């Protein structure tokens, strides 16, 4: 096993030199999410060696670790104390790091009920484009001192700062979980997911795959029995495996080279009339689409529904892959980028061209 190490000052030196010379840096953890965002060139900045859990205090519900710490190491440490990352991040490979996970801001099936990656970020130590080491937020649950820069880092794909250390809120694992299956077409599955979400039921996942709606319930044994009685459905034997495979995109649906789109829409949006294959997650709020349809059609449909679309995998990674931003918002993004990274050296172009 690789040793824990603090290479913060080394990384700082590299960033400073890059700023002085105007060299673009390509920030990398474990490389499991190279597929995501726009294709960029740049000198590799390897954060993977900056690793190690710095603090985990189960009764404080907080873990702090260096960005290069393998996600698996964190999950193991939490599991030993019967805790978890409640946003259920997908790893997309064994070498996934905490930093990459937070920079991408991915969350799994539990997200609509537990919250997203950014919801669990309590604090971060970062390197901005000047090569300054800055700390924002902290290790406590509630903190409103100063602008919420640590949450701003989530999903910014490293374009605003290099993540060094991250503090996350963690939660106890549910006492028990049960997955139930219902044979339903997509439109009826969407209606059912939303109807159940309006009721005080212990839901923790709801996805429609093929022609089956899967519902996961979590909590105390007594609560699960009561919920099962209300919901009906067929118990699924290996529920954990099902959700893991879905989250890690290892199901058959995700195979093949056809572009994969992610549509984030209001959960009750009716089944969408775009050509391709669909998989519905997050109780209807996250829809996966395998399609060759033109980007503009997909973006327009997502926007009409009140959401946005991302070219998640495949397709043209030199073009824009995230939803186009209206002019004043795009200008604000550029000024924000400037304020953190005036030389434009941190993952330039990974999120949007020009950022």
């Amino acid at each position, binding site marked *: 096993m690789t040793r824990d190490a603090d290479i913060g000052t080394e990384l700082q030196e590299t960033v400073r030199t890059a700023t002085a010379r105007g060299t673009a840096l390509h920030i990398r953890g474990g490389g499991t999410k190279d597929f995501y965002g726009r294709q960029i060139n740049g000198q590799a900045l390897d954060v993977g060696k900056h690793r190690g859990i710095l603090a985990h205090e189960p009764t404080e519900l907080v873990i702090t670790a260096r960005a290069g710490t393998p996600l698996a190491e964190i999950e193991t440490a939490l599991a030993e104390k019967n805790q978890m990352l409640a946003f259920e991040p997908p790893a997309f490979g064994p070498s996934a790091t905490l930093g990459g996970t937070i920079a991408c801001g991915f969350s799994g099936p539990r997200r609509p009920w537990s919250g997203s990656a950014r*919801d669990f970020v309590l604090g971060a130590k970062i390197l901005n484009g*000047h090569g300054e080491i800055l700390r924002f937020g902290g290790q406590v649950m*509630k903190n409103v*001192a100063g602008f919420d820069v640590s949450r701003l880092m989530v999903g910014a794909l490293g374009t605003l700062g290099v993540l060094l250390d991250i503090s996350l809120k963690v939660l*106890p694992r549910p006492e028990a979980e049960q997955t139930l299956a219902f044979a339903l077409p997509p439109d009826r599955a969407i209606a059912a997911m939303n109807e159940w979400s309006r009721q*005080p039921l212990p839901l923790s996942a709801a996805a429609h795959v093929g022609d089956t709606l899967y519902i996961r319930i979590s909590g105390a044994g007594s*609560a699960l029995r009561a919920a099962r009685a209300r919901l009906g459905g067929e118990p699924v034997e290996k529920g954990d495996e099902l959700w893991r495979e879905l989250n890690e995109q290892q199901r058959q649906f995700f195979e093949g080279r056809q572009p994969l789109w992610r549509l984030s829409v209001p959960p009750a949006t009716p089944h969408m009339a775009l050509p391709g294959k669909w998989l519905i997650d997050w109780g209807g709020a996250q829809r996966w689409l395998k399609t060759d349809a033109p980007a503009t059609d997909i973006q327009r449909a997502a926007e009409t529904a*009140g959401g946005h679309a991302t070219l998640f995998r495949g397709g043209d990674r030199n073009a824009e892959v995230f939803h186009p931003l209206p002019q004043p918002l795009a200008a*604000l993004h550029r000024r924000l980028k400037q304020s953190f990274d005036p030389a434009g050296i941190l993952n330039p172009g990974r999120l949007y061209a020009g950022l």
Partner: protein
Amino acid sequence: MGTPLQERTPAPHGNQAALLAALRALLPREALLVSEEDKRPYECDGLSAYRRLPGLVALPENIEQVRQILRACREHGVPVVTRGAGTGLSGGALPHPEGVLLSLSKLARILEIDPVNRTATVEPGVRNLAISEAAAPHGLYYAPDPSSQIACSIGGNVAENAGGVHCLKYGLTVHNVVGLKFLTVDGELITLGGKALDIPGYDLLALLTGSEGMLGVIVEVTVKLLPKPERAQVVLAAFDSVEKAGDAVAVIIASGFIPGGLEMMDNPAIRAAEDYVKVGYPVEAAAILLCELDGTDVEVSDGIARVRELLLNQGATEVRTAKDEAERLRMWAGRKSAFPAVGRLAPDYYCMDGTIPRKHLATVLRRIGELSREHGLPVANVFHAGDGNLHPLILYDANKPGDLERTEELGGRILELCVEVGGTITGEHGVGMEKINQMCVQFAQEELTQFHALRHAFDPDDILNPGKAVPTLARCAEFGRMHVHGGKLPFPDLERF
């Protein structure tokens, strides 16, 4: 807090006179308040130790008017302080003597309750509780419940990232907002999100939340609604020492419970609340815990039995379970009225808002006790125990010479103590005007500089709520107290003066 701010009534300089003329042309007569008498109600927010009159007060009725006001202010270089309901406790809505106080109280329509997507879309002046009331017919509610919820506005909640007694389980404002519309200082309307769960690009929803009116003026908010839990039940436990109560909190969390609410009050707070609302609190206890579990019926029954046992094992001298909904509400009424209750013990009280890692609770309370004696000012403590957010309430008399200054000094010491043990100077009330000096203790120069740079990306000329929340480096130098990280001063081996 502090040296009460000098009230200046500056002669309106050129800009202001020109601005007034411009605004008169844009707004109906009653939407502008200029006389001292009319402006008086706006001189302070919930932190009444700080007062000053604004240059003028504008009361727009719609987004278009807000936009025009912003454009005019920007053009004339006049500061704008946005105000919601004015219940803030950090002086965030304290007017600027030469600026416009922009009150959004008339933008108070509930635009849509969408029971299917489980969202409410409202104007910023809508009161927090009004959202839950409007959602109630659908069996839904808005979770964050600051104690001020009957009065405070959702716009103010977003600007402060307000919390409540249920936020350990249901999160703060930031976890419950899915969409915002805000006006930039240039009057551009920017829409962030809507009813989907996330937004493209940078997470400006998170950034705008808690931005204290310094990045933009929030003109519409879409929040998540949750199904009302089938049942909620509260247990009250009394302890003969604060340490035991603190340990019991840790044990409850470690056992895997995330209670809907987990609150602590110390003896002075218990007595004050009992005197005020007569809910039957055990007045001899050194501390009480209120632990609420919610969920399905069976789940709550099982949970309550287990929590009772845990509390008794931790040495609780008494454990009471609310018999019915009326008793549950009574138990909470004591906690929710703690501020006004304590307020009756002295002519004035001053509410602090630090957050600490919970394990340091006993030490911090002991140190607060010592500091309280040193400064000769009583302190009562209420505590969002589940998430470590402490509200020491300092009792003083503003009319007694020197009391206010000593209160300020004591308050500052308490906040610095929070930072020293690895916490923060504000958990939910914001920095505003009040804790601006302590920002110099919590953050290093480079961090404050980054905050200013970020702010200038939105507001290059410091028009929006200038002088609040983020101190200038010059101010920190003057304040003369240093940034401490992890209990260590920078360069520990250098000699101190």
